[in-house]
């Protein structure tokens, strides 16, 4: 009994010591959680004494944690909303600082045997709103279209809704799945299916080339097209801080935006920032920009 007590004491002391060594807590996007963890791993290895904790939960969860003060950095695969900005200002009297850290593209997945090779954003929108219901209407086989989407708590969902649906609504028929892996899994098995998710996750499915409208060029979901922002569904992956980052958080951010951090982005399967490697070039040396 007594021994158990002393073990508990030691554990508590240790926990105290760890939390005293200013840890940077990062929370948010499930799309970015692997990226964040790789960054944290390498950063802690190369910076002895630094402690970085990364958890997922979804972009909104991360931003909520930032607002509550339970995270130093929110990872988000979508831009922060006006509502959330106002809330942060309201609760903590600091603006949200937006830091693009990497780039990603949303790929449109179809079954391998689906003959449809390309779509315009307009067609995609009609499909997801339930106006186009048969693959034949976009040059495919005579099959009904089965719609798959991410759950409404994901940054990918918000991004798709904004870019493809122009803030309109998904067809009520559209099925909501948890995580990109489930969508890829379903689409790989179903000739009627269409789904969307990260470009990195295309095992077993085919992606469709996209054009902004019927008069513009089609671009495949490839690394080069995303990095050049030519692919219509390219996006930034953000970090958000509450007010200007300082101390260990600031050091970490500088490192992430630097060549070492950006090389990890590519290794994890996302795309480095177009202007990466130029940190500190801006007049004030500030790598972040404030948005209000």
């Amino acid at each position: 009994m007594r021994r158990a007590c002393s073990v508990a004491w030691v554990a508590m002391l240790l926990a105290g010591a760890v939390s005293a060594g200013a840890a940077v807590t990062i929370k948010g996007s499930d799309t970015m959680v692997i990226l964040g963890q790789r960054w944290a791993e390498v950063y802690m290895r190369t910076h002895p004494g630094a402690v970085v904790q990364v958890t997922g939960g979804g972009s909104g969860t991360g931003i909520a944690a930032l607002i509550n003060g339970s995270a130093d950095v929110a990872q988000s695969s979508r831009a922060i909303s006006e509502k959330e900005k106002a809330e942060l200002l309201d609760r903590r009297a600091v603006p949200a600082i937006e830091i693009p850290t990497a780039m990603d593209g949303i790929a449109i997945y179809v079954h391998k045997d689906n003959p449809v090779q390309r779509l315009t954003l307009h067609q995609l929108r009609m499909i997801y709103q339930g106006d186009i219901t048969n693959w034949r209407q976009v040059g495919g086989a005579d099959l009904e279209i089965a719609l798959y989407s991410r759950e409404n708590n994901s940054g990918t969902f918000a991004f798709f809704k904004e870019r493809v649906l122009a803030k309109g609504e998904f067809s009520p028929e559209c099925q909501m799945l948890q995580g990109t892996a489930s969508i890829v899994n379903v689409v790989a098995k179903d000739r009627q299916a269409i789904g969307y998710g990260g470009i990195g996750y295309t095992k077993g499915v085919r992606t469709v080339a996209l054009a902004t409208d019927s008069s513009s060029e089609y671009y495949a979901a490839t690394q080069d097209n995303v990095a050049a922002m030519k692919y219509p569904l390219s996006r930034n992956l953000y970090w958000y801080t509450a007010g200007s980052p300082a101390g260990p958080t600031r050091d970490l951010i500088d490192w992430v935006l630097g060549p070492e951090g950006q090389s990890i982005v590519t290794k994890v399967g996302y795309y480095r920032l177009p202007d990466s490697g130029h940190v500190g070039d801006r007049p004030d040396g500030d790598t972040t920009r404030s948005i209000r």
Partner: protein
Amino acid sequence: MTPPQMKAPGSHLAGSAPRRAFPLRVADRRRDQIAHRLIGLAAFGTIASIILIFVFVGKEALPVLTSPEVHKEVTVGQMLEKVEPRPGKPKTFIWQPVSDVPKYALPPLVLGSLKATLVAILFATPLAVGAAMYSSEFAPRRAREFIKPVIEMLAGIPSVVLGFFALMVMADWLKVLFGWKYRLNATTAGVALGVAIIPVIYTVAEEALRAVPRQYREAALALGAGPWAAARRVVLPAAAPGILAAIALGFGRAIGETMIVLMASGNAALWTLSLSDSIRTMSATIAAELAEVVHDSAHYHVLFFIGALLFVVTFLVNLAGEVYVGRLKRRLSGIAG
């Protein structure tokens, strides 16, 4: 240290001290008292935590009824109203909380929960009651000692595992079997849910069947009935209230179950009666959206409102089931005695 005293017969019962045959040593008695207090505390602590959860959920749900802040976005009336999904489209109930104009229609979620639960009950009841009849009436003792723990072990399968199985494997089988458009739907989720509630129904039904006094069977057999006729015509009707209670408990478990429906139901909130359409249940909605929601927003309170609904429904159904089982046991033992 003195050698431990012989315990008086019956002293292990939680009786009061004077009833013991001879007094315990003071140290023993004190230890006894401390133990009593501790386990008493555990019991009341458990009850208190249930009440606290109830109060907490209720408190977070209440603004849906009272707060003008929430009513700017949604009222209870609007939660029961049909709207046009887009101008010109037929009106229907829509659940789209993440939207420029959030829509919070509850009927599809309630219907979704009921559809999945109905399928689960329809799937699980015959299997569970059949198994219960076999193991209580027909199985040799050895077989029973094998069947009972194995079925009850089903209850130990984490629901996330069942959900995963339904999502990856069962959905394919059922889609091929029925030729559905969507492989994830009310039936897929319901069948997986059924697997989860089989042990609940089985355990209670088995108990109910075994509680039927032996004299019933003997009387039936003496009158010339075969074992099957005796079981079906005499034992089963006698245990019927208990079996009903078993189904009620299974219902309570199924309607609150979250992980399976979250993974295997497709999560599209449709207002249709078809069992091959996707559903979005109340529990899965809370699980999918609560982590993301802005604290104190209308959406947040609506989710707690759904939680409170779910809590009340499961509580009432479970209560009814428990009361029924208790009453049945008393009645049967009364008759037997």
